């Protein structure tokens, strides 16, 4: 665990907008802590669009929230450098200034994400008002952002309450709150999961557009590989608290390296092709307090062998590019295994 995982990216770390190194997250008390996330590392550069995928409970949200230090009770170790500053070393007060101002966040449930008692306008303006921006100025900027996000008649709609908005509109408002202070990074935690297919599409398009226009870096969290395909450049796959796979989108979809990634891909029903039966990943992910020995995925892995049950695989460069944590990829065998993986997928 001491070894620094290798980089997927060749760009120098110093230029990174966000550089997470060996982030380990513990919950619970000292004698019996629950390790939610272990040695998570990720680099994001300005304008980067990265997806973080994995089944429910794999630790995606915990990771995202810990970058923002939203849970005071998690014990965090490692480092989270944002624009050169280690967020884990900031005081609570300094952290408040980072949240919402430099890093914006978008959440899953658009209804739950808005305070039902306060008007949309107030909520969108809030980050600016906290920063001391005058009311009229804040109002103007809120209107601009909402306009930009396609809220028709924004000035009037700002006086409305969340319940008067439809799900898709609410998600726009949530996005507006995240964007209003011009952050350079947006973390979107399942922003579309609760939405209808069509609204989902709209919101993604919107995020796509805004981030491109503003050169925003986006960390998109989801469990659905399908939704990331058209949106991101790079995908990191998490399983049971660890990053197990990371690659560029094309690589990942074409040559999924990790058996888990392969499984996820095969499980998505596809509109452009029918299979008699969907291929599934048997079983369920382990509880963070009771992970199996060795590779956490081994009980569900069709290719598991003895080593998998004994030793936790480390991240190594994958044959098709990127990194993967799987005993099937000791450097030499990597190519062959990748082939095998592909065959299975067909």
């Amino acid at each position, binding site marked *: 665990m001491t070894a620094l995982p290798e980089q997927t990216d060749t760009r120098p770390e110093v230029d990174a907008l966000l550089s997470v190194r060996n982030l380990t997250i513990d919950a619970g008390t000292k004698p019996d802590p629950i390790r939610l996330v272990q040695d998570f590392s990720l680099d994001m550069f300005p304008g980067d669009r990265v997806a973080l995928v994995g089944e429910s409970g794999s630790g995606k949200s915990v990771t995202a929230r810990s970058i923002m230090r939203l849970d005071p009770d998690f014990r965090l170790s490692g480092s989270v450098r944002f624009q050169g500053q280690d967020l884990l070393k900031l005081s609570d007060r300094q952290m408040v200034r980072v949240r919402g101002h430099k890093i914006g966040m978008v959440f899953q449930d658009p209804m739950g994400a808005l305070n039902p008692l306060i008007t949309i306008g107030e909520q969108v303006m809030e980050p600016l008002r906290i920063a001391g921006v005058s009311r009229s100025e804040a109002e103007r900027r809120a209107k601009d952002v909402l306009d930009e996000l396609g809220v028709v008649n924004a000035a009037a709609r700002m006086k409305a309450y969340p319940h008067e908005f439809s799900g898709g509109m609410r998600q726009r408002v949530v996005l507006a709150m995240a964007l209003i202070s011009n952050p350079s990074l947006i973390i979107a935690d399942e922003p579309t999961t609760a939405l209808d297919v069509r609204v989902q599409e709209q919101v993604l398009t919107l995020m796509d*557009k805004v981030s491109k226009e503003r050169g925003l870096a986006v960390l998109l969290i989801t469990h659905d590989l*399908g939704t990331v395909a058209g949106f991101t450049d790079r995908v990191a796959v998490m399983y049971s608290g660890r990053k197990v796979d990371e690659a560029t989108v094309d690589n990942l979809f074409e040559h999924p390296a990790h058996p888990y990634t392969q499984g996820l891909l095969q499980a998505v*029903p596809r509109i452009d092709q029918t299979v008699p039966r969907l291929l599934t990943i048997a079983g369920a992910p382990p509880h963070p307090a009771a992970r199996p020995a060795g590779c956490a995925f081994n009980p569900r892995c069709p290719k598991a062998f003895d080593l998998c049950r004994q030793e936790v695989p480390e991240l190594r460069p994958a044959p098709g590019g990127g990194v993967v944590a799987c005993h099937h990829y000791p450097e030499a065998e990597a190519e062959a295994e990748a082939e095998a993986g592909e065959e299975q997928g067909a």
Partner: protein
Amino acid sequence: MSLLELRDVCKTFHAFGREPVKALRDINLTVEEGTITGLVGESGSGKTTIIKSIMGLEKPTSGTITYDGINIPEAKGDELRRVRREVQFVFQDPTSSLNPRMTVEKLVGEGLLVHKLETDRSRRRARVADLLTMVGLSDRDLDRHPRSFSGGQRQRIAIARALAIGPKLLICDEPVSALDVSVQAQVLNLLQDMQEELGFTVLFIAHDLAVVRQICSRVAVIQSGQIVEEGPSETVLANPTHPYTQALLRAVPNPNPTVARQRAQERLAEEKVA
């Protein structure tokens, strides 16, 4: 032969102090025996209202709903009992659709008890155990409560519960939309296998066309309470005629980066034009 038939079903909600909501307008829908029929539409299009009407929990404002010759809204006594026995449901959220206080044995066995199909306790237990094995659980799970299962497993329990009394028609209201992709695949497979094995009829409701395509032979598309397109799923999905169907189809995420990126480009362009 059609097992379930909706003819000109309309439903208007009159809430106090609010504008009436026309949730269903002249719905005509036929479910053929032994098939899996899909019903797709976005949120609020009226899918659940249709289901509730079939359940007999909402009375349509007009129109008829016939199940095997029985007009459901009017059904009483023996007829109603037959409907209750032969039509079963699986709901979207496997957590809230299972009584958290009951053990799996009781949950799955309740239908057997209520319809007096198996009144002997130990034999009922054995039947339930069989059902559990059938849906991929085991008899060790008999005395557990639904809370201790994962989402996918809960949905299996819900399916076992529905299948316990041997329904002729199974109606699933978005049974997989709350599940993870990997679990969703498990449940879809299970449904498909069961249907093939037992030969019952399924009305499958979803908003994801890819899911529908995977398991349905026929599909009906509903928009704002109206069926806008209907036909064999291959045909409808390959050549959608209605713009709404087309839009739905395009919205389905495609796990193919090249296609997806291209589509994203198109959308962005459209967005700019609009």
